[in-house]
């Protein structure tokens, strides 16, 4: 198990969002965290990615407390793409992706041939090589998201956390981004943790689902185990039918209405 949360309590200021939660991320899987708005799924992901320090409990990366490791060392093992990341104006795709090499660089090692190779490869994998010199602001939403994923790839980590990588994208672009995630996973068997809103896409693209409500994990397992009519009622307060997806066979949620 690469990444583990042990009895973590998370919050902002006085507000506790997650209280005494345990979660293990299995090596080489794509895990997706689902749950209603405000259930603490992004907060949990931020804590797993060392962006938020737990107020209680601990997060372990390869068995070591993540908050006691140097930030740079963590950044060489674990990449995190925050929700709606911001880049400075006028930045080109290549410059953004090159920034992913930051943890591997220093004042005497500013741009090695390694850096160059990895960045070129990351651009290639995300299909952005031809757009490398374009400013980020000129790209479509899907391309921009691919550029950010490309930057996380350039970081060269085999552990990748993605916080709602499909927000603000239309369905076609959502599928495009998730196909890319799946392809990256298939390539090196890297461990990926995502937060997603769309349950059907989550079921289709994840090996494991973790369903959260009110800062707790209600259930975790394969999409087939987790995505049931009972779970939808308990976690989302949603009455729905779950049928097999005609394309992939994964569970498909057909909402009926909000449970009264």
């Amino acid at each position: 198990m690469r990444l583990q949360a042990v009895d973590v309590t998370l919050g902002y200021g006085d507000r506790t969002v997650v209280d005494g939660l345990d979660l293990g991320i299995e090596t080489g899987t794509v895990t997706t965290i689902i749950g209603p708005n405000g259930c603490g799924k992004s907060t949990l992901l931020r804590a797993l990615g060392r962006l938020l320090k737990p107020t209680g409990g601990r997060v372990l990366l390869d068995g070591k407390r993540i908050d006691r490791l140097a930030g740079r060392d963590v950044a060489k093992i674990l990449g995190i793409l925050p929700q709606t990341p911001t880049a400075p104006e006028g930045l080109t795709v290549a410059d953004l992706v090159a920034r992913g090499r930051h943890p591997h660089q220093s004042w005497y090692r500013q741009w090695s041939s390694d850096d160059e190779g990895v960045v070129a490869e990351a651009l290639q994998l995300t299909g952005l090589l031809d757009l490398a010199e374009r400013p980020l602001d000129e790209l479509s939403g899907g391309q921009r998201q691919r550029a950010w994923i490309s930057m996380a790839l350039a970081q060269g980590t085999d552990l990748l956390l993605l916080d709602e990588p499909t927000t603000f994208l239309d369905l076609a672009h959502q599928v495009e981004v998730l196909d890319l995630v799946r392809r990256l996973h298939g390539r090196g068997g890297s461990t990926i943790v995502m937060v997603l809103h769309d349950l059907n896409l989550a079921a289709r693209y994840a090996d494991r689902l973790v369903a959260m409500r009110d800062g707790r994990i209600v259930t975790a397992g394969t999409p087939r185990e987790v995505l049931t009519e009972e779970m939808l009622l308990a976690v989302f307060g949603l009455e729905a039918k779950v049928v097999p997806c005609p394309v992939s066979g994964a569970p498909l949620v057909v909402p009926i209405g909000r449970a009264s």
Partner: protein
Amino acid sequence: MNAPAPVTRITAGKALRLRGVSWLVRLRALVLTLAGAAALLSLMALSTTIGDIPLTVGDVAAATFGDTPNSFVVRELRLPRALTGALVGAALALSGAITQAIARNPLASTDVLGVTQGASVAVVALIVLTGAAYGGVSGGLSLLGVPAVALAGGLLGAAAVYALAWRRGLEGHRLVLVGIGVAAVFSNVKYWLLTVGDVNDSGRAMVWISGSLHARGWEHVLPVGLALAVLVPAALFGSRSLAALRFGDDTVTGLGVRTNHARSVLIFIAVLLAAVATASAGPIAFVALAAPQIALRVAGTPQPPLVVSALTGAVLTVAADLVARTLFSPVELPVGVVTAVIGAPYLVYLLIRIRRERRA
């Protein structure tokens, strides 16, 4: 598989590599640095030839390196003045470049760090309350006293801004707002002191708070020179973090940068630069604001390049002092008046430009 993309596609620079060491050289910045240094040297040479006793460049060189009748004028009066101007301008510009990058705001300058206003209040208080104009503070003490008090006031002002802006971390936007607020308070205290003070004291204080290079000697050159010798390498060392800090906090933290730590260290460097510069020449207006923005536009970089900014600041200040000295000769203007006259329209231009960019 396509062939790997060439370097130039990925970064604006060219990599020089040797046994695990790789340096990124940006040709345009290099050319600009050399051009800036050449411009600065020519301006300083020009500045040392002009005055009550007109000299040629040859005279100046002879007087500097040998003993000629002009040696006193050149070595003790003109050279230290030009050097103080160059060093102070460089320090202010570098400080401004760092501040603008941290605040992610082209209108931020060292004024928002609380340094200049803190120093102004302290110096005005010293002059007005001790009646320095009548010799309340005698020659030697006032010479040492004003820079020391300015330094202390500047650092205290910065500490106040920093303490008020810290909320479980340092955030650029909040720093600017707090800085503006604190500056307003300090500035009112300063004006109150000027009004209650004796007319002659207030007059002398006014010259100081305009920023002046009048009668600057080696004792002014040395502290700024030493500070720059330490702080320029420190700033360059931190420029990698500075570049990363342009991104959102989560992204930067994810890249392994200790955001609050890096920001605090860089702000501290900016504060020291501004405080030392202000202690030597008073709060010269607009150099810290304008020089980094000019450098940024000339160099075509996304954020103010540090070395080019420093050189631009030095050139601006020496040029402004030359104008201040010669325009209404024999009456001399404080250099800060000239930089303000140039700087104010520039600020307006910048505001209009930013509004246009936002609308586009």
